[in-house]
């Protein structure tokens, strides 16, 4: 909305210096995998441009994504960007509720039709529209309504991006992702459970500064700047993996020495994210650094990846029972096969007609 204060004023109010802001823009620029020369442009765009209206929809979610983005760094410049955009609807953060809140959403939509940005966290239940409603409107309906006039949608968190935890087997609510429903709008997926706050804000900053087209995404709709390398590619425990040194349990010598967590079920080798480099809580740490294997939360169906504590190379199924059946079955078939071979042998012996040297001479 036009009457919202611009970023410089907000910065002043939050006690953030211009130098601090420029430094932040430089960091953002490098996070977005853009050349440093573009840092001033990021700064200019963030400072000056009119901020698009943002409607944040929360569906089947745990509020972890919102928690992450609002709480973990606050008050910081990331937080500021969220103040600086015109966040017109976010039912966790807004004071209004029920119909009053919906009226605000509708007003924002009308005013900015075709230009507003929709951010979604949480999945959408299809099994029964009554499973999740807001002011009596089902999630499905609200998403369809709101998406219609959107310039783009950012699906924040693995629930919105891929279905996430609600989608986990047996998926009782029939949960699906935003992209499973909306097919005619650009969708950027920012998965993670929750995503790293600075990744969420960087994607938004890039959108604000350079537009949608500047955000290159992979096959799963994830910005390549943040989701093109695996955790394993950048993990500081990688030298131990390469040396073949693994923690075998959470409290053995290897765990204390900080060895690789592969055998404790680390999904780092198949998980694309910047956790190992950007880290969490202002660059303090990330799960592997804290001694826990990566769960793979930026990947679809990470909840159903065979068990968080099962190494990636270990079968995920119930092979033991089958193995026993195979032993029994193989033995039975073997006996049968052997019996057949024996009878073939003895019948061949029975049918065998002895040939004498005389017979041979006769024939030749």
């Amino acid at each position, binding site marked *: 909305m036009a009457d919202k204060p611009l970023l410089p004023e907000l910065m002043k109010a939050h006690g953030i210096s211009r130098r601090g802001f420029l430094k932040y823009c430089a960091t953002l620029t490098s996070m977005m995998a853009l050349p440093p020369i573009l840092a001033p442009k990021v700064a200019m765009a963030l400072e000056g441009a009119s901020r698009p209206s943002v409607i944040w929809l929360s569906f089947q979610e745990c509020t972890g994504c919102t928690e992450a983005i609002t709480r973990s760094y606050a008050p910081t410049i990331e937080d500021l960007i969220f103040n600086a955009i015109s966040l017109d609807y976010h039912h966790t953060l807004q004071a209004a509720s029920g119909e009053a809140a919906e009226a605000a959403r509708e007003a924002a939509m009308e005013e900015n039709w075709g230009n507003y940005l929709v951010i979604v966290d949480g999945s959408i239940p299809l099994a029964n529209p009554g499973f999740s409603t807001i002011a009596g409107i089902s999630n499905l309906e609200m998403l369809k309504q709101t998406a219609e006039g959107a310039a783009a949608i950012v699906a924040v968190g693995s629930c919105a991006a891929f279905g996430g935890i609600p989608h986990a087997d047996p998926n009782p609510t029939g949960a699906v992702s935003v992209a499973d429903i909306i097919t005619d709008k650009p969708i950027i997926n920012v998965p993670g459970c929750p995503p790293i706050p600075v990744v969420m804000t960087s994607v938004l900053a890039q959108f604000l500064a350079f537009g949608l087209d500047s955000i290159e995404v992979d096959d799963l709709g994830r910005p390549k700047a943040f989701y093109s390398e695996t955790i394993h590619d950048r993990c500081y425990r990688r030298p131990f993996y390469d*040396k073949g040194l693994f923690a075998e349990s959470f409290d053995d010598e290897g765990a204390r020495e900080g060895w690789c967590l592969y055998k404790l079920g680390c999904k780092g080798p198949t998980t694309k994210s910047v956790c190992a480099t950007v880290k969490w809580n202002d660059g303090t740490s990330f799960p592997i650094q804290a001694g826990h294997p990566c769960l793979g939360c930026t990947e679809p169906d990470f909840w159903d990846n065979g068990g968080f504590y099962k190494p990636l190379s270990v*079968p995920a199924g119930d092979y033991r029972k089958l193995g026993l059946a195979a032993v029994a079955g193989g033995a039975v*078939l073997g006996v049968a096969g052997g019996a057949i071979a024996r009878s073939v042998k003895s019948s061949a012996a029975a049918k065998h007609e002895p040939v004498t040297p005389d017979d041979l001479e006769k024939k030749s």
Partner: protein
Amino acid sequence: MNNPYFDLLMWARGPGFDIALTIMVGGILLRLVEIFVLGRKKDLAAPKGNGVLQGLRTVFTRSVPRKGAMKEAPVTYIAGYLFHIGFFVAFLFLGAHIALIGDLIGIQWPAANKALIEIATAIAVVALIALLWTRFKDPVRRALSTFDDYLVWVLSILPLVTGYAAVNTMFGDSTLMMAIHMLSAEALMIAFPFTKLMHAVTFAVSRYYNGSIQGRKGAES
């Protein structure tokens, strides 16, 4: 929304592995029981030597080339050894494989470092290529080669190449490469009982058989 590569990996780790293991274990047992059920005729002649001892000896002595053989077919022998050593070092000493074996049979041992595994893999691959080359080059060997020989060659080299690629994130997505590596190993497992790969089990049986027959007759190996 799902990731087809991840789904493929989960298939390879789940039903794919179950199917492969069932066929391999069942198949090996089928072949072995079949062999043992056939039995042997009782040898009524008085033994001139210790059949059992000679049989056991032969299981090991046949691993050493007989006199002159090395000169006749150096590539076959040297590359043959190198392939087997390389393959088993890569198979038995990579951490991820040890985790798998640990889950299967409950025994684990220390893993080797990446450099050693990769050298072993490279040696095994080069050895396989050399073996294929001698097979092509020698008209007799080429004439003797069957589909089974080429199939087994492909099935043996694939896990080595795909495993190397998966660990080093070559040729594309790491999840996809890991899935392909597992599927290639599963193909090898399925083919195992029904091709000459079965020699990994039957070599001991047949060597013992030959050794003990000769041993009983007084010949030493």
